[in-house]
């Protein structure tokens, strides 16, 4: 951004924006904490600190200092020490080295002995499960590593000063009577400019409107505020209706305290992308008119991301806007993402013998062939876009995992090639008599088990194969069995406990998310009670309750390689956990509203989170950075799906639209319109040819994802600017719509042979 702003006229502006960067980071921090804990010292130190220093390195120093101060002030001696130590290392190495260090430290971790250096930080903290938010930027990866060490201050009584700090920005005021004039003056101006600029400048309306309204309210001009709202709220884009509704209810200064939406507006800068020409037009206009009020708001609450080139069209703008805080800054999506898949581990042949001794002679050559076919392309040469194999330490494969891999490959050879000409059959699992309210569903990868989370706090597991669910015998009985026998694995199972379904009790609130581990030994569930629980599917008991989110946890997801899992909830923070650590390894803060859904990247190096702030963020697990921010949804996002090759991401929201994203370029590449209600589930077929979406509107829709990805023309310009022309081809891409019988579709799953499974509760 700074690179673009080189005009001498805007020298001071540039400075302004520089500080804004910092400001924004702090803002993110504060907002992430907004609903949870306020942390004004950080915000104030970093924003009022000597921010003029140039260069990212020194900025980082500043932030570190600020964090240290903050920690000292709050008597976190241990954390201070750790941070000092880390900072000491970092002082004599530049940033990249630091990263390497971190990476090597990670790589060195042996997953075999079940320790993970990712959790270094957690070892030195003794505080209660942290809810502290890590600054997403500025302090960067080091701080987020540390974030778990941040103690959590007591919340009580600190809400008020914090909000006052935040709101004090509104104290400067002009004449309330003139606000309407200012706004309509700007409106007239925008209407008078050339068509090509009008669309861009129209983006200003909404943030200006919000901030002017809030200023009026803050300064107790209730009637003026109401009149202002009456007059101009209708001009705003319809996709801001939800926020406007919140605003319209807010007419008193007292109401502003504790209103989360308001804090979002205040603490984050609304990001606009405007072409240089349009921007200069605006600036000239405001200078001519001496319209300081608006200029102040622009300076203070808006972040204008200026680009060179053609102004964007209305449809281009519309497709990208809609999020709570405007569009993503361009540099937010510049980081490199290793979206390729990891190399599949070689599976030694002897295992085949064990597996099926009977067909040794004929079986062997047969089995080898498909292996070469299916893996040859992947394993022979490393995907250039793939992360290093040990970038994130992954658990070693156990024998049973290898067996499962073999099963997987066998099944994969029988897989049906899908395409527009051959659509998958759909098998719908209806939950009957689910009066207690079905809230979440998951299938195991091999489609043998189905789990449901219910609003009555229970988790139920069903076997969908004739094989019944059995638990392991009790310890006393286990002592009796012959441990040397060949069928010991069979003998440890308690036949008496065999049943088609098991109920898991433990949560004390509705279960909003369930997820099976890839090896089918564990089940995760997250609940309104703020915990994530890990259940054993051998004993059908709860093993661990992970406490960290102090607010409802909306979603949780196992990594495709097991061991790690991600959770996200009302506290706006996504947490990365390892099953054997009771505290999170990473905390991803930055969303401006609840995190509603989470998803692991197929290579387990990234996680995507969807939020009620209408953005999707992609986080790097290694360093905790937010590497992508996708804006364009007009409602809270409730479903995410990565394509099997890791290149694309699909997201579905309450507005019924599904958006497709290219992760590598950070671009929106498709919009699938058709659903009329919230899209609660998305899934790519095993080979990625078909995208299935399930919705509250009782339909399953199938989309031609290959065509959607191919149709996009990505020349260098669009790739560079991110200004994409979306083809209006939803209808061509829609391959089929299948109605259920009054059953909202809340989960979709492709079996290994590409049969589509869907699940939902009958809702008469």
């Amino acid at each position, binding site marked *: 951004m700074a690179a673009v702003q080189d005009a001498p006229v805007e020298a001071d502006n540039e400075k302004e924006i520089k500080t804004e960067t910092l400001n924004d980071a702090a803002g993110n921090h504060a907002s992430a904490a907004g609903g949870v804990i306020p942390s004004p010292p950080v915000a104030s130190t970093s924003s009022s600190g000597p921010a003029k220093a140039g260069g990212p390195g020194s900025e980082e120093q500043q932030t570190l200092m600020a964090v240290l101060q903050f920690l000292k002030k709050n008597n976190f001696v241990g954390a201070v020490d750790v941070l000092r130590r880390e900072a000491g290392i970092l002082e004599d190495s530049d940033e990249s080295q630091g990263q390497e260090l971190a990476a090597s430290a990670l790589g060195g971790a042996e997953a075999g002995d079940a320790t993970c250096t990712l959790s270094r930080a957690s070892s030195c903290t003794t505080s209660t499960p942290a809810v502290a938010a890590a600054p997403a930027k500025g302090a960067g990866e080091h701080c987020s590593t540390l974030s778990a060490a941040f103690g959590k201050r007591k919340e009580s009584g600190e809400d008020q000063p914090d909000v006052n700090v935040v709101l004090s920005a509104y104290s400067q005021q002009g004449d309330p009577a003139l606000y309407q004039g200012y706004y309509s003056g700007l409106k007239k101006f925008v209407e008078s400019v050339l068509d090509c600029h009008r669309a861009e400048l129209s983006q200003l309306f909404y943030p200006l409107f919000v901030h002017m309204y809030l200023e009026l309210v803050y300064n107790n001009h209730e009637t003026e505020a109401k009149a202002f709202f009456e007059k101009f709220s*209708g001009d*705003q884009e*319809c996709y801001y*209706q939800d926020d*406007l*509704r*919140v605003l*319209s*209810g*807010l*007419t*008193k200064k*007292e*109401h502003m305290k504790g209103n989360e939406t308001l804090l979002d507006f205040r603490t984050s800068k609304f990001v606009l992308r405007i072409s240089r020409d349009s921007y200069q037009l605006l600036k000239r206009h405001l200078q001519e008119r001496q319209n300081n009020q608006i200029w102040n708001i622009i300076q203070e609450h808006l972040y204008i991301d200026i680009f060179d080139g053609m102004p964007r069209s209305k449809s281009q703008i519309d497709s990208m806007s809609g999020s709570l805080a405007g569009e993503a800054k361009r540099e937010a999506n510049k980081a490199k993402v290793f979206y390729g898949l990891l190399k599949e581990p070689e599976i030694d042949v002897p295992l085949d013998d064990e597996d099926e001794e009977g067909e040794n002679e004929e079986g062997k050559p047969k089995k080898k062939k498909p292996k070469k076919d299916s893996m040859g392309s992947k394993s022979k040469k490393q995907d250039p876009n793939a992360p290093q194999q040990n970038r994130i330490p992954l658990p070693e494969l156990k024998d049973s995992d290898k067996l499962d891999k073999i099963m997987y490959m066998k099944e994969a050879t029988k897989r049906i090639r899908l395409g*527009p*000409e*051959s*659509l*998958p*059959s759909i*098998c*719908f*699992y*209806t*939950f*009957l*008599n*689910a*009066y*207690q*309210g079905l*809230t979440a569903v998951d299938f195991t990868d091999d489609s043998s088990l*189905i789990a*449901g989370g219910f*609003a009555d706090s229970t988790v*139920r597991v*069903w076997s*969908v194969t004739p094989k019944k669910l059995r638990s392991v015998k009790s310890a006393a009985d286990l002592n009796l069995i012959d441990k040397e026998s060949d069928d010991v694995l069979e003998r440890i199972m308690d036949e008496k406990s065999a049943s088609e*379904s098991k109920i898991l009790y433990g949560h004390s*609130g*509705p279960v*909003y998310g369930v997820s099976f581990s890839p090896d089918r030994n564990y089940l995760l569930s997250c609940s*309104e009670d703020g915990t994530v629980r890990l259940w054993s599917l051998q004993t059908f008991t709860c093993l661990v309750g992970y406490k960290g989110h102090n607010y*409802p946890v*909306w979603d949780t997801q196992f990594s495709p390689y097991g061991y790690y899992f991600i959770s996200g909830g*009302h506290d706006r923070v996504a947490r990365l956990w390892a099953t054997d650590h009771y505290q999170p390894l990473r905390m991803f803060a930055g969303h401006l509203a609840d995190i*509603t859904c989470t998803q692991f990247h197929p290579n387990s190096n990234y996680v995507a989170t969807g939020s*009620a702030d209408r953005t999707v963020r992609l986080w790097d697990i290694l360093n905790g950075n937010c590497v992508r921010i996708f804006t364009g949804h007009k409602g*809270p996002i*409730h479903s995410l799906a990565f394509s099997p090759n890791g290149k694309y991401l699909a997201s579905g929201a*309450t507005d019924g639209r599904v958006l497709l994203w290219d992760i590598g370029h950070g671009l929106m590449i498709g919009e699938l319109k058709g659903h009329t*209600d*919230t899209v*609660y589930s998305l899934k790519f077929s095993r080979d990625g040819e078909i995208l299935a979406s399930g919705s*509250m509107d009782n339909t399953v829709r*199938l989309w031609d994802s290959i065509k959607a990805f191919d149709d996009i023309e990505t020349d260098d310009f669009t790739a560079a600017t991110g200004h994409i022309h979306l083809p209006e081809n939803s209808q061509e891409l829609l*391959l*089929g719509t299948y109605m259920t019988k009054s059953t*909202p579709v809340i989960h979709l799953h492709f079996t290994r042979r590409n049969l589509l499974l869907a*699940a939902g509760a009958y809702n008469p």
Partner: protein
Amino acid sequence: MADREERRFAEVPRESIRLMAESAGVELSDDVAALLTEDVCYRLREATQNSSQFMRHAKRRKLTVEDFNRALRWSNVEAVCGYGAQDTLPFRPIKEGDLFFVEDREVNLVELALATNIPKGCAETMVRVQVSYLDGKGNLEPQGTVPSAVQTLSDDLLKYYQQITRSILGEDPHLMKVALLDLQSNSKIAALLPYFVYVISGVKSVSHDLEQLNRLLHMVKSLVQNPYLYLGSYVRSLVSSVMYCILEPLAASINPLNDHWTLRDYAALLLSHIFWTHGDLVSGLYHQILLSLQKVLSDPVRPLCSHYGAVVGLHALGWKAVERVLYPHLPAYWANLQAVLDDYSVSNAQVKADGHKVYGAILVAVERLLKMKALSLSVNAEGGIGGLPRPGGIMGCRESSPGLSPPPEPLSEPGLGIASHLHAGGAGCPWEDWTPVPLPAMYCELYSFFGDSLAVRFSTGPSLGNSPPAPLAQPPTTRKELPGGTANLDTARKMPQLTANLNISPRQDGSPHGEQGGGVGSAGASQSLARSSSSSSVQRSRSSSSRPGQRPSGLSRDVFPKARFNPLPAGPPIFSFVIGGRQMGRRCQGRRFQTTFTPSQPLSAVSSRTYAHKLPVIGRVGKPVRRWTCSQYSLHLPL
């Protein structure tokens, strides 16, 4: 942008706040109340907005009290208790004054606690599978069939289902009877209906087995008669199964020894029964049935047994159907039939026999058509007499008809409105331009085909048509019960039977006998032929016995026209006989029927009815039947 709609919120009036404060013992001044009101409204809105996220994550569309309470709890406000029930709360006004309240009944806990009838817990949550098979193009495969997985039924039902199907399709006739009876009266089998329908749709897979087909049809009948079952759209499926039995060239009919005719008759009867009792469940059903029957009838490629099915189907659906579909088709069809009947080659014998079946069926159908038409005309003519007594003959006939429940076919029909069905038929329907043929014309035409085989007689003179005589008042001129061979005839039967006159000619006789004065002669053959041929020593032959049918209804066996053989030691006997009739210039002779027998088989072992089809039986043969479950007769339809 254009969305300028004003957002209004529910507001709590100031008075309410003050009232509540008073009830808590606080007196509020005006401005305090105003401030409080505003704050209360805001907080309510806030809580509502917060609660909506709980709704969204619970994947519901309905905001519940529970959601709201959660939002309150998370903002450290006490939850509201007592409104957790799922059902809606009645919101009532009080007559005096503008007061509204939520009804809050007192619950007697003691009564609840000591209650003896403990309510059962709701059914267990379970997962059920439904598969939508997609073909390559993404179209759903037809959904009518039910997945064979019966796993979701309760154990009891499952057991019941197994028992019932096993006993119906099993060997034991007694068990079958019991099962059918239960199926007819059991009130708790609604959940099984789809499965039974599915089983019945298996007719296509057992088309080689008459017995099974019969049993499945009985199952249909039981289901249809069960007063507790709402068949709904399953009617369509049932009808298609029944239609299959009526129309399809079943695998069983390849073997001439199989009496598939009876099956078709039975199925036709069933069809009319389903239609009259459940026809209203599926709109346009009548129309569809007629269309498919017509299609079969007009398709010369179809085998004769299909045509036969179409004719009896139409007959079963009522005389209107016959009038609209069969009658207009008759001239065209007649040519085909005639060709079959005129072919005397040995290889054609089987087909010819089938042809006679069709001929007989048509004859019966048109007879009734004539009768009913005449009746309806007379009823219309006597329209002044309200609720005129139905002619006793018809009533008697209907009551005595051996069907279990004869379809309540309206005589002077528009009551049920077949006609409206027909008129409602879309464009392109063949009967759109259909105009009713006046009775005399119809009679003349039919007479040209059938001659005096027609039992219903009208004068064809020019004076006819002004007031056609009520047919029942006029006894059929030629009336003769067809011989039942070993069978007794139902004495109560009063319906007009066509007259048959049988010539049994020795084989050397190629030329038809008995052109007895053009009028009376008609030939019938009886099952007894089979018997007599089996025991050729008994020679009962009544050549050209023309008994002008003034016989009283109670006919005994010996007065039947019997076949008579000349004992011819060599070669199979050949029957040939003529149905006399004026062919209106088309043919000066009567219709001649001829057939050949090969008595070489061990006939005595075969029951008589097996041979029924071999003979050009017109009308009915076999025993009198009280239960129509008995398949001993064919073509018996209540008139």
